[in-house]
């Protein structure tokens, strides 16, 4: 059953397309040598080119082009060996040249596609329309002075990839899953850090609604949404607004809107009549961008493993479930952690520990997989202590908690606290003899057929041994003695 929103006139389908602006990971800007570090002092990373000074000229940064090509390859897309930069003309105080250099008519990357994973375990293919390179603008600060606006040009000229999807998504969930997957691919490729809070990835959301079986109705664009959760909320809010317009006899007008995250509604930013005439034309300062197929092939050969490939490998080589493989590959860092733990060990057990105890510890301690409370090497050592019988599962969990608290290696903790499990049959027999002697009545009951009491004896034995008895041995000796 596909996703619909129920209006007064019945169910409505949603049609969603996303335009994502992803800041390219590079040391220098798209057309100047200025640095791109986030959070630097305002106007400290600005060249005369970025500030639009007279006589300054853009020179393309080869690494930014390589990053766009890598991303295109990661999106299974057509790489255009000939592309061109255009000027998009408009006036704004944080746009020093009075135009943005972008690829309007001839983008470097053409059509492609990615598969998104949905909650119900299904996947869906979303089309990519294009990817093009463009410059970012600076930042206007209107809250620094009662009557003046301040301009920070650090971001001016930073390379962005604009990644445009086909209108293939049909629910907020799909929009969220698309962004999640896109971000995952970009992070795997190392072409964008995907940090939406820092603004290095932003989404413009195109939404329209329709009745089943109809063509497309007018769409509206919700600009600059800066988290996956907000994208999902904005889709729903905008769809509900449009349904209300249509159902009250009105017409949805094509316009640009903003998502008010506080109130959970979209607001009109500018209508089609107010839309800029950007007067696009080829930038005469830049010859067409021509790249060699051999260079594209080199970049392709050097691509890292992508999420889909890695997931398939985990299922195939580690024998874990597709769901577990999905969870473990969502973040590149999680996958690396998992592989370090699983290497040469029980891969399923490793998956359970990473997704269970480790994730819980990360949540509890508000840390991250990049700076985990327990290192992959230490977790692996803990698994080894279980494998060689030093620790029972229960003891291992206790040791893990101590590891989280102290950051110490499991071997040291076991030694210091005497947590080592007892595997000496003689010692176990002595304790069991004592337990059985103390509970002669229960022994009689057990022997007369009350099998359930076996657990009681195990518990008593373990308690007497402070949990350090090897469970298998305890069971074995108990069975023998009670026989």
């Amino acid at each position: 059953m596909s996703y619909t929103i129920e209006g007064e006139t019945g169910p409505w389908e949603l049609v969603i397309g996303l335009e994502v602006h992803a800041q390219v990971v590079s040391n220098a800007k798209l057309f100047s040598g200025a640095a791109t570090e986030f959070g630097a002092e305002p106007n400290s990373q600005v060249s005369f080119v970025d500030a639009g000074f007279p006589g300054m000229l853009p020179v393309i940064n080869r690494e930014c082009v390589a990053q766009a090509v890598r991303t295109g390859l990661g999106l299974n897309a057509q790489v255009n060996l000939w592309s061109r930069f255009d000027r998009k003309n408009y006036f704004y105080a944080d746009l020093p040249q009075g135009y943005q250099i972008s690829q309007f008519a001839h983008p470097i990357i053409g059509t492609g596609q990615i598969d998104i994973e949905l909650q119900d375990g299904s996947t869906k293919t979303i089309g990519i329309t294009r990817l093009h390179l463009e410059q970012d603008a600076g930042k206007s600060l209107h809250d620094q002075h009662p009557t003046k606006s301040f301009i920070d040009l650090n971001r001016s000229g930073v390379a962005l990839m604009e990644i445009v999807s086909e209108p293939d998504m049909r629910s907020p969930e799909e929009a969220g899953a698309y962004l999640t997957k896109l971000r995952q691919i970009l992070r795997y490729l190392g072409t964008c850090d995907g940090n939406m809070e820092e603004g290095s990835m932003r989404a413009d959301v195109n939404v329209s609604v329709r009745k089943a079986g109809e063509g497309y109705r007018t769409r509206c664009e919700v600009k600059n949404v800066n988290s996956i959760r907000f994208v999902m909320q904005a889709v729903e809010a905008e769809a509900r607004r449009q349904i209300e317009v249509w159902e009250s006899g009105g017409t949805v007008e094509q316009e640009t809107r903003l998502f008010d995250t506080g109130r959970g509604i979209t607001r009109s930013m500018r209508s089609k009549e107010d839309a800029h005439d950007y007067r696009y034309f080829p930038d005469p300062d830049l010859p067409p961008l021509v790249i060699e197929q051999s260079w594209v092939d080199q970049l392709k050969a050097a691509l890292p493993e992508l999420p889909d490939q890695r997931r398939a490998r985990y299922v195939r080589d580690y024998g874990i479930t597709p769901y577990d493989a999905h969870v473990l590959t969502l973040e590149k860092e999680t996958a690396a952690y998992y592989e370090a733990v699983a290497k040469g060990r029980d891969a399923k057990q490793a998956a359970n520990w990473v997704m269970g105890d480790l994730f819980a510890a990360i949540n509890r301690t508000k840390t991250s997989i990049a700076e985990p409370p327990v290192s992959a090497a230490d977790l692996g050592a803990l698994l080894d202590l279980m494998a060689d019988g030093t620790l029972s599962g229960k003891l291992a969990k206790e040791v893990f908690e101590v590891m989280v608290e102290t950051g110490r290696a499991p071997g040291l903790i076991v030694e210091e606290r005497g947590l080592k499990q007892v595997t000496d049959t003689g010692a176990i027999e002595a304790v069991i003899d004592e337990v059985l002697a103390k509970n002669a009545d229960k022994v009689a009951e057990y022997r007369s057929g009350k099998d359930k009491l076996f657990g009681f004896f195990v518990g008593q034995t373990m308690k007497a041994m402070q949990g350090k008895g090897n469970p298998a041995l305890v069971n074995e000796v108990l069975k023998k003695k009670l026989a």
Partner: protein
Amino acid sequence: MHPTDFTIAGAVAALEEGVISAEELTRAHVAAIEALNPKINALITVTAEHAIEAARASDAKRARGEAGPLEGIPLAIKDLFCTEGVQTTAGSKILDGFIPPYESTVTAQLKRDGAVFLGKANLDEFAMGSSNLTSAYGAVLNPWSRRNDPDARLVPGGSSGGSAAAVAARMVLGATGTDTGGSIRQPAAFCGIAGIKPTYGRCSRFGIVAYASSLDQAGPFARTVEDCAVLLRSMAGHDPKDSTSADRAVPDFAAACTRSVKGLRIGVPKEYHIDGMPAEIEKLWRQGLDWLRDAGAEIVEISLPHAGYALPTYYIVAPAEASSNLARYDGVRFGLRAAEKESDLRDLYERTRAAGFGPEVRRRIMIGTYVLSAGYYDAYYLKAQKVRALIARDFREAWSKVDAILAPATPSAAFAEGEGSDDPVQMYLNDVFTVTANLAGLPGLSVPAGLDPQGLPLGLQVLGRPFDEETVFAVGAAIERAADFKALPGMRAGA
């Protein structure tokens, strides 16, 4: 011989032989500027003190045996080239007081080779004009005058009018210019000197205030073809800071000036015989062809079928690019800011740009904005780009038949202020013979070749294949030798 009468080649030899020092040479030109600039207004900014210091340093370098090819040569720099620490106005109020913190590549290379800069030359505002009348820093007076109307104030041509007038009046030995539609060749012709617009991409545009990026090209002015060749060698060369600059070796252009033209095929475009062209221009053109024939060249009639569309094409492409290039003059970061206390951003833009730009610049920004607008783009800008491609193709076909083309530089001699200068379309006709070279990216050299009946200089123009400035120089030098142009302007140093 008065020091201001030297050619560049002659001055280099005299400096080398110790006949004169760079300081003496510079001081003589500073004196000429002090005497003449108040009348001619060729220089917006005079950097006399800097120049004398630089000349002393030049003498010291020469003494150490480290002289560059232009060591101690006094030049004027069109005020469109950004010069570090020296005001650069582009002839516009909007850049009044703008002191660039960087140096253009062309001027940096001239300095590297030892040139001494005496000042920043006047020009049409943002290089938009053919008369130098659109400068916010006043008109430039052509040092030549009419025989029977000596009081008429003649224009030096434009946009590099100050550069041409300064060289003609012997205030400097040479100057830089830029040529977007004829802005070197037309003023050179009006002022009786030589000037070349090299192939697009030959000189870096880095640090030159942009007018129309796909057409703008820097080039030199001097009083001889050889001097232009010497200057161009220093100005040219690949620059990684300009993506449109050509990665090609720079030949010894001066050596090409002595090449024979024997056996060269010289094209005469039949479409250049335009209606209403003065008889003396036709006559001079024929004379030029005769000189080349006498020197052993073969004259071939050719056709450039789309030549007639060049002017309208230029006046779409150039303003379109200009409208975008000039968007950065917004009062936010540098130059003029005209704002009231309560101005909002839009008001700041409107006041600044209305106060900062003159009428011709405003006109071209409006034309350019119009031709790029939605609904008009295809009919104007896109159509013009197609015609531009056809014009370039016409030339490519011509190059299979000829090695160079000879044409008039301008449709008339210098005109007086007020004569037609209030009619923009009439004004644009000045560029009729020059814009094609810009649209096709070709090198074009203007050489003084004769006088009109009023005693005003007229120029002939040599066009060549892309990056074949050497043939252009060879043909230009042959015309120069044959013409033996000795006339001098009335207003000049040492007169």
